[in-house]
């Protein structure tokens, strides 16, 4: 398990490498946004 990454760490690694405004940077942002929405819905469901 050690050395492997969860989704947030993975997206963080990508964000560090990419230049702000680049295609992959924007794609990372979109993934983060989707993940945020999903987590909010999950919280609503379990609370």
């Amino acid at each position, binding site marked *: *398990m050690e050395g492997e990454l969860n989704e*947030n760490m993975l997206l963080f690694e*990508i964000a560090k490498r990419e230049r702000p405004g680049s295609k992959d940077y924007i794609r990372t942002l979109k*993934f983060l946004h989707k*993940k945020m929405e999903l987590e909010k819905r*999950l*919280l609503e*469901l379990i609370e």
Partner: protein
Amino acid sequence: MRVLNIAGDKLPFKGFAHRVSSPEERRRGKRVKDAVRKPISLARTMVRRIRSPKGKTRERVRGTLLQTEALWRAMHSHHPLELPESPHPIGTLHALETGGFDHLVPKKRMPALAGLKKEAAGLRREIREFAESLGIEPLLEGAAWKGN
């Protein structure tokens, strides 16, 4: 009035020891002693609810959401990137996929959870493929989510 004190916790209610059985209960043969015992068992249930281990999982999800939001905000505003500490090494998408939240969702809300699970699996696959295309290590695999 007496405050019930079970397992060292002062409970947020008082006076249950004064409760007696109702005339109807007494007609059915219930003694006053039984009626007094009942609220104490209720108090124990409340202690269990306060200490529910399910709260831990919820806290982790809240923590992960905060982490995701912080990263999104920093990226969005082009601030220097920092990743706040993770509340759990396994991400919420993986946990959703492997049934890590099943014990928290009431039965009638299960269809909604099934939809979320599918979305989580799809999103996770997309993120993994994207990362791999950029030459970054794959996501955690094989580790099961331990809810509590």
